């Protein structure tokens, strides 16, 4: 057997499965989003009609779609930078030369990342409980006003963002820590000799060297946060008054509650477009401010 034949034999099965069960469905989703695929078509395909961009046009005219899009962008644009900042703070602390018990701290800070999202969302639902929740108990103890976290449309999304930061910051922390460890000590030494203080060393040595890592975690976090679903499903069921309804939640309800599969596919594609635009936007920002990306 020639190596070239072997290559196809070894890669073939996985490629075939990805082609049939991923690429084909993605193309089919585009096609379905141009039809009125609904519960009647589900029963009998002869009820299926091509409707062009009608699903997209109808979505753009629905307040609920704009609400879901706005909520998702809120979650992404506030939650993702906040997550990255918390991750960076944790990574900087872990990178401190004099810090003890690094292994323990690294594990403890990372633990939430591997937990089951549904299970920990259930925990947080009780932590955020207005009367018996520990969070309000703590706020009250500090003399701050208590908040109806998951029952008040103004606070439900911030509560979910807080939860998401808790769940995810450890992941980026690990990537950023590796980035920090790769910065040569000489650079800091040189900056010190030039009389740079701690803040100047951070902004002139650490940050520029960290740009590629920050870009990477920024893109990964945004892509992940655009797919918000399980958190509101478990914690708020999209409420109160749709304040935590996300794009994927809308897709799920359109598709699997109302069986409007054409419209749901259109929702999925709009999300995809937003994710690509966000990634390109970040690339542009990093090119402008960063060096060596």
């Amino acid at each position, binding site marked *: 057997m020639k190596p070239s034949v072997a290559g196809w034999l070894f890669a073939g099965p996985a490629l075939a499965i990805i082609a049939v069960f991923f690429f084909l469905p993605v193309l089919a989703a585009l096609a379905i989003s141009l039809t009125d695929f609904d519960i009647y078509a589900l029963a009998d395909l002869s009820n299926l009609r091509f409707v062009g961009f009608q699903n997209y046009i109808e979505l753009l005219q629905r307040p609920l779609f704009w609400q879901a899009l706005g909520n998702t962008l809120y979650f992404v644009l506030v939650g993702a930078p906040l997550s990255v900042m918390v991750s960076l703070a944790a990574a900087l602390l872990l990178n401190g030369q004099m810090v003890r018990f690094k292994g323990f701290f690294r594990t403890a800070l990372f633990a939430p990342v591997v937990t*089951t999202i549904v299970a920990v969302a259930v925990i947080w639902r009780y932590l955020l409980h207005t009367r018996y929740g520990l969070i309000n108990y703590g706020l009250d103890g500090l003399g701050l006003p208590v908040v109806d976290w998951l029952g008040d449309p103004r606070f439900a999304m911030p509560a979910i963002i807080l939860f998401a930061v808790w769940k995810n910051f450890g992941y980026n922390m690990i990537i950023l820590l590796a980035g920090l460890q790769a910065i040569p000590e000489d650079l800091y030494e040189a900056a010190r000799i030039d009389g740079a203080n701690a803040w100047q060393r951070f902004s002139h040595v650490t940050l520029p060297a960290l740009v590629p890592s920050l870009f990477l975690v920024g893109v990964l976090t945004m892509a992940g946060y655009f797919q918000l679903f399980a958190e509101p499903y478990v914690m708020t069921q999209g409420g109160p008054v749709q304040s935590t309804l996300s794009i994927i939640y809308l897709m799920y309800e359109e598709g699997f509650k109302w069986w409007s599969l054409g419209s749901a*596919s259109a929702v999925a594609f709009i999300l995809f477009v937003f994710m690509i635009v966000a990634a390109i936007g970040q690339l542009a920002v990093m090119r402008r401010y960063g060096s060596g990306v």
Partner: protein
Amino acid sequence: MIGKPMRNLWRGFGGNIGLSFFAAFAMLPLLWMLSVSLMSPGEASSFPPPLLPKHPTLENYMKLFEYSSMGRNFLNSLFVASSATLLSLTFNVSAGYAFAKLEFKGRQLLFRGLLSALVIPAQVSMIPLFLMLKGMGLVNSWIGVLIPFVASIFGIFLIRQYALSIPTELIESARIEGASEIRIFRSVVVPLLTPILITLGLFTFLAAWNDFLWPLIVLTDSDKYTLPIALASLSREHVQDVELMMAGAVVTVTPVLVLFLALQRFYMSGTLAGSVKG
């Protein structure tokens, strides 16, 4: 004036205090879950909220396994996650090796295509995939739940990056000695790939165990629910039973946490390898 060693000591101390805050933030919700799961029914819903159970009891766990289908859901999750792991290792490892070490026509182009497809969110494929499975009568089947885990672009990428480090001379010399490609793969390549196989296996197991949206769509029969689906539906029915729900959360989270702790080294190295831009 404080000398340098003294100042460093203080700086380390400050760093440890900062890290302790982070550790408390990360760990308290999990410790609270464990503590409440051992409380008597109704105990957590009092003011001020208790931190520790007055009389620790396993009542909630017993109730969970006797009156709900948690035991069954646990076995379902175990079966789905283990099968996903085996399937993923079977399909992705050979493909990752091929992309790293076997020259074949269109390899570069295919690989670049796969990488750029990483930006497509899985949710886009879910509706047609559901319809395909429906057409094949596979809705509410194990095959249906497992399909997305069989072959993954990320898995192939992870293996390929690692397999690139295998010295080509090793493979060449085995070839000259007349070993077949399959034999080379089995007795030369796979042993060298062991660490990354553990990493990929761990990633797949955790992803399948924690997965929510896809099993929620595909599994329609509560007999087949995995733990996250069962827990989500239980939490909608039993909103008031904090203690019972926390026991359910402990049962769901413990296996993955234990697995992570045992294989942490492989998890961390994989996280970094997987995040390197190709």
